[in-house]
């Protein structure tokens, strides 16, 4: 009898405790909605700049849609000359994941536009994944169905938001805050390409970041259950329906010995075929755009200016026949 009373008391306390912390946490999170933090504010500003550039172009254009690998890796001027259309590079940051990248792309795409998509690999297999950049960005720019964020991702955002994000969110952007440093509109040219990435501008810490960058395990992480082909297919279909064309190409990435054996090799070898099976027009081979370390600026995805020229030449070779075919239709 005594034990039963004690158990009931314990249960009552446990339920009250759960309700208490749950409500407190949700209240704390509610205060984060619409509050950006300095760490990801550059992403918002970069998109603001790039979308403004895109909106000034009235004729059919070429849009480059991906993460920062495209921002550092594509020479939009050369692409424009080769394809005979104005180009805007919408690549900013793969960390904010496909929901935002696709959403910003939709804001820029106009009927008849051609879209080049050198999408970073994890975005093809991260249907239920999130990361800290995404969490930070989500609270500043919340959305659910409109953004193609699923319930699993949303639940993770709610659970994984660090207390520090809440503190920073409540503090907000410091008065007079201006985006500075390597990333942001201050380092973008008129096409949206990253500038100041010559070898001579690479500082020691940047080189160390490249050296220390991890060996990616995209092959091991790619499964049927977390595939994200459908969302990219939906975007490509919208482009096609509006009279344009969408071509997927492999992004530039730092080469590692591990990518040439076992599961990882199989992943890169079969990715174009997989993409095509899921309805994407994917051209080129990922193994052809793996480059040595001396071509990278500050991460395993960010090319230096000289290497950008090489990658862009390859990219043009891949996409030009596709867009010529598109024009013929």
């Amino acid at each position: 009898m005594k034990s039963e009373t004690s158990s009931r008391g314990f249960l009552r306390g446990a339920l009250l405790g759960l309700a208490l912390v749950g409500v407190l946490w949700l209240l704390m999170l509610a205060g984060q909605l619409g509050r950006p933090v300095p760490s990801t504010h550059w992403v918002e500003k970069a998109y603001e700049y790039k979308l403004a550039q895109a909106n000034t172009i009235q004729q059919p254009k070429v849009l480059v849609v991906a993460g920062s690998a495209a921002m550092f890796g594509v020479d939009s001027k050369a692409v424009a000359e080769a394809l005979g259309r104005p180009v805007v590079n919408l690549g900013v940051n793969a960390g904010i994941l496909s929901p935002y990248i696709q959403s910003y792309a939709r804001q820029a795409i106009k009927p008849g536009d051609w879209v080049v998509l050198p999408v970073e690999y994890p975005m093809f297999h991260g249907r239920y994944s999130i990361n800290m950049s995404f969490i930070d960005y989500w609270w500043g720019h919340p959305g659910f169905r409109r953004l193609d964020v699923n319930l699993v991702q949303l639940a993770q955002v709610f659970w994984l938001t660090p207390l520090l994000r809440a503190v920073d969110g409540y503090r907000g952007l410091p008065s007079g805050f201006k985006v500075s440093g390597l990333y942001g509109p201050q380092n973008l040219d008129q096409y949206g390409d990253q500038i100041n990435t010559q070898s001579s501008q690479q500082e020691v810490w940047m080189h160390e970041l490249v050296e220390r960058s991890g060996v990616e395990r995209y092959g091991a992480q790619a499964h049927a259950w977390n595939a994200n082909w459908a969302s990219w297919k939906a975007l490509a279909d919208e482009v096609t329906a509006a009279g344009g064309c969408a071509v997927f190409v492999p992004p530039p990435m730092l080469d590692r010995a591990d990518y040439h054996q076992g599961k990882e090799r199989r992943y890169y070898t079969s990715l174009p075929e997989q993409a095509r099976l899921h309805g994407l027009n994917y051209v080129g081979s990922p193994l052809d755009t793996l480059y040595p370390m001396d071509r990278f600026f500050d991460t395993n995805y960010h090319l230096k200016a000289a290497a950008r020229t090489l990658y862009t030449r390859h990219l043009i070779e891949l996409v030009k026949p596709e867009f010529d075919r598109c024009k013929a239709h």
Partner: protein
Amino acid sequence: MIFSSYAFLLLFFPAVYGLFLLLRRFRLEQPALAMLVISSLVFYGMWSWRYLGLLLGLIVVNYLLGLQQVKTRRKLWLVVAVVFNLSVLAYFKYAGFFFSFLPSSASWHIILPLGISFFTFQKIAWHMDLYRRRLPDTGTMLEYSFFVCFFPQLIAGPIVHARTLFPQIAAGWFNRPLTWQLGISLLTVGLMKKVLLADPLAPGVAALFDHAQAGGALPGPSVLLAGLSYGLQLYFDFSGYADMAIGLGLMFGIKLPANFRSPYKSASIIEFWRRWHITLSHFLRDYLYITLGGNRRGRLMANNNLMITMLLGGLWHGAGWQFILWGGLHGLLLVINHYWRHLSRWRLPQVVAVPLTLLVVMLAWIPFRADSLTTSLHMFKGLADWRWTWAFEPLVLLREVASMHIDKSLPWVCVALLAMVLTLPGSRRLCLTLGAFGRGLLVTVGLFMVLKALAGAPDRAFLYFNF
């Protein structure tokens, strides 16, 4: 697998406990015991399947030696068992240290099997108890395996004695009420100590000791802070582990011995050793100090034995001169303390004795944490320079607390934690005084905070896994 991980808290433990409750419902004591042994082996095997073989081999060899002991009652088998166990421990823990003069020793990569220091002592105690007839027999192989590898205490204690454990798993184990509420409350308090208090101190502690290790000068206040912050980290980490082990034990109806009783509230070094790592102190007292002669041959020999015990206790923590220095310092302080008690009836007032003991204990943690004797001595030299180099920045403090990464705010956080340690009751008393409703509240609020903190934090193993 460690207790403070999602894998343990959300998968392993619920699965094992669910199975245990099911078997308990049908009063299947022996199958439950077997299930706990298998679960414990899986728990150990998750760290290293190779060393699981070693653990199993040691269980079998020790059990056979124990059977011989019971059969013959000869000292020979005790000597064989003790030498065998100490040799295994010595190989894994001290081979590199004692043979460091050999050029080839640099290429020896001997990995210390997790928990070997603890389960070796348990086995030695078991053999001694059999020899001294404190234990009537070996128990069954299953009971002995359970005694060695019951997962709550397998890795870092408390050091359990078979004479107290065997009666708890004898027939009728499932007739006793299960104190699961107290168990889960202690588990929660232990997790909170480890995840919310000990782990956040790690970056700041490491920064100070790494700076000294690299040859950098630390002024006196920073040296003191290094000792204090590490002392607090170690206490919350290790006593947190002990709380978890005891809590988990209670949930299975097993009462494990207390390992800590608010040690930083001690008013003397003697009292400190009655409150800190109690089961190790008891082991060293019962099986080393008394075996050496204890205090049976006069004060001088007693102090000599005490000194040897503390030096070996230091060496048990790790193969390095810094551990010997730590053990020696405590041995010396204990000898002085004992002489003082013998020579004078006058005692320092509590208000002076507690801070003085605390100061000495915290400073003695420096060699315990430092990577070498050289670093320890280099740090102690800094005590001559009393420059204050820390600044109070409320915003930095707020951000470091929120991110649970204490570095620049170390002094202020340590002062707050010290105040907590000196004023709050011990975990067990706290859980008992809360009442059922309070315990329920504590468990959900505490577990929420712990799981939330673990979601974004790197896995940090318990400090005593190194020893």
